[in-house]
């Protein structure tokens, strides 16, 4: 996993819970915490940090990932406005994930191992498939909620399929409203 994700976690934990909390997470995970954005680090490190956060903050690890995604999105919007500006709705923005956003991620962080998405538009909304060996659909869920807030929309998410429950992919059913 790219160091930039670790940096993001550090930045948001320090912002919302103080730098000591971040130190506590590192101690609890037995990690030294020297992450640079361009470096690559074991996925295992990130999993340990998320679980440590879940313990210390007394909440499910998935909720930690939702929180991370939701708070990461405004950071992205601030750093990469050109990816957001052409769009006027969450759905239009989300549909550019495979074709525009992730190719851009790979340009900044060569070798980044981004998840694969698939999309199906239907009458009730958008079905978004997620596939990644990291099974971090909750992070995606948080980012989606953050994106909806960015575009001033309400979003409800249901998840009929999940890799963590043994399905071969996750499916997030998205319903937007203003």
């Amino acid at each position, binding site marked *: 996993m790219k160091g930039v994700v670790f940096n993001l976690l550090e930045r948001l934990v320090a912002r919302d819970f*103080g730098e000591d909390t971040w130190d506590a997470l590192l101690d609890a995970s037995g990690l030294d915490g020297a992450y640079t954005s*361009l470096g690559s680090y074991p996925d295992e490190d990130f999993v340990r940090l998320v679980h440590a956060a879940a313990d210390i*903050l*007394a*909440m499910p690890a998935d909720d930690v990932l939702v*929180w991370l995604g939701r708070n990461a999105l405004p950071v992205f919007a601030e750093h990469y406005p050109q990816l957001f*500006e052409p769009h006027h709705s969450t759905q239009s923005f989300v549909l550019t994930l495979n*074709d525009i956003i992730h190719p851009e991620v790979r340009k900044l962080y060569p070798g980044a191992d981004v998840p694969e998405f698939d999309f199906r538009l239907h009458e009730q909304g958008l079905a978004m498939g997620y596939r990644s060996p990291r099974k971090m659909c909750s992070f995606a869920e948080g980012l989606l909620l953050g994106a909806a807030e960015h575009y001033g929309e309400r979003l409800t998410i249901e998840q009929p399929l999940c890799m963590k429950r043994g399905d071969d992919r996750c499916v997030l059913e998205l319903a937007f409203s203003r």
Partner: protein
Amino acid sequence: MRARARLLAVKPDPPTVERSSAEAKLVATERRLRRERLARREAETIAERATRVLYDKQQELVLLEAVVLASNESATVGDALQGAVTAVCAHTTWPVGHAYLRDTASGDLVPTSSWHVPESDQFEAFRGMTEQLTFAAGIGLPGRVLATGTAAWITDVAIDANFLRQDLGVRGAFAFPIRADGEIAAVLEFFTASAVAPDSSLLEVTDQIGRQLGRVVERIRAQEQVVHQATHDGLTGLANRLVFRDRLELVLARAERSGSFAALLFLDLDRFKAINDTLGHSAGDQLLRDVSGRLKAALRATDTLARFADEEFTVARFGGDEFVVLCEGLAAEGDAVRVAQRIQRALLRPFVLGRYEHLVTASIGIALASAEHGDAESLLRDADVAMYRAKERGPGLWEVFDERIRNRALERVRIEQALQKALEAGELLLHYQPIVALGDGTLDSVEALVRWQHPERGLIPPEKIIPIAEESALILEVGEWTLRAACEQASGWRRRFGDRAPLPVSVNVSARQLAQAELPAMIRRVLGETGLAAADLAIEITETALIEDSSVPAATLRELKALGLKIVLDDFGMGYSSLSHLQQFPIDVLKVDRSFVAQLGTEADDGAIVRAIAAMAGALGLEVVAEGVETPEQAAQALALGCGWAQGFHFARPVPPAEMESLIGSPGGRVTRLPQRSSP
């Protein structure tokens, strides 16, 4: 916000310790830490930016390399455009790319088959719409590029007022031009399903791609032009013989499989040579271009009948005024005739050459591809033969090749070969027909007529020999032989009979001989070699020979006249020459065509034509000979109508020299009535 609230709840309280040196140290350390962290972030940002630039540059290099590679491997402009479209789509990961070519005639951008689209049918409707549109300058995305000459980017086509193909699944778009020879030759456009902000570095690369492709287009155009020049007629732009032969063989093979009919039309303009000679070569070239234009238009126009739907035509010019049309996909054999008629209709309207309108017709020979006509060569030959047959029957006609014509053609070839041998073997001989003064019935002069003493077929008359010889260069050899033999004979008679010799001797000279610039020199040489005085020789030319070619013979005839020999106009009345037309030629004698003489004495005829001819000849100071006089009544009438001389079976058939001599030697030399006897 449930998780957030809980997280906030566990945020630890800030430590409450007294200020001390330890505390000051801690503050300093934290400041140092912040500095380090800021420095680290800045370093990371710089590194990320550099990584991104490096990545972009690498990708751009990959893209340019792909474009260069594709264009180097391209044999056609279409291939090069396709290669670039694919490479740009691979680079941008945009799903749709398409190339327009500039139509040189209209200047508009027209869609091509160079596309990049996903295999799914997601963009099928967009593609279908695009393929139906052509864009003028300023219209839509491609037209914008054409008008400004620079690349254009549309963040979201849905909110762009000048984008025509709305609601078809594309949102982000850009397009850029390709320049060749200083002009926009093509425009490439790319689309993706979502809105995308302009990418200035991508637009810079497209500029380089445009230049690269422009060079490729220039190279391929130059090559195509060389190939086009080698395969097309420079004057009319029609296919040339080389391409046509290829196409013909392909079509013959296909017709055999499909069961449809193919036909070959061979066209030859009537009187083209006359137009070329009288109006000049540039007018002739103009006519050929106009005819080619009419041919193309006539064959392109869709006939109202549905049965023409599958027909395809290939038009070529074989050189001169020879055009060929290959028809394929004919439903029935008779359709080939319909095509010939369509062409002849298209030529009906007068052609404007210089300041005047000219009526031009074409003789058309039709050959149908059939099982026997397996090869291109024989089909071409047969169409050619049929065309000549059509021309023989008159201008503006068509003829379908069939077995009869083929046999006649074969017969002709056989006779031609035999005639060549006959010349070498000395089987040709001359007979002489008396020309009689109608007033007193005396033998005046003779016409020399060539005969062929065929070893198996016996004596063959000139009507069978001359037309065949005229179609080949043989007429020149036969003509020279005839002239020499006649001059030798006449020279002998002059020596032997003195004033009683029936001279001058008339020798027929064909149009083809007349066209030879060296004819006067040849006659002078023969006269010298045979010792015959020029005044003892007359040459007979037909009226049609004068019409076919009006400029050359006038000069040649004047040259011949200057030698001192007589000029006789044969078969007069069959052509359509006017009096003023005849006046340019130095003619001494008119021979009234036998068809007018044959009608003399019948109830339907009052002799008006012969009288008019005789009167006209009298006014011009010409002698008049009635040809084909077969009865005493015709002889009497001809004399009464003003003909001074006559020739025909009533007086004498053409006879061998010995018989002629006994006639000369007869007392009084009167030839009122010679014994009717057939030649041996």
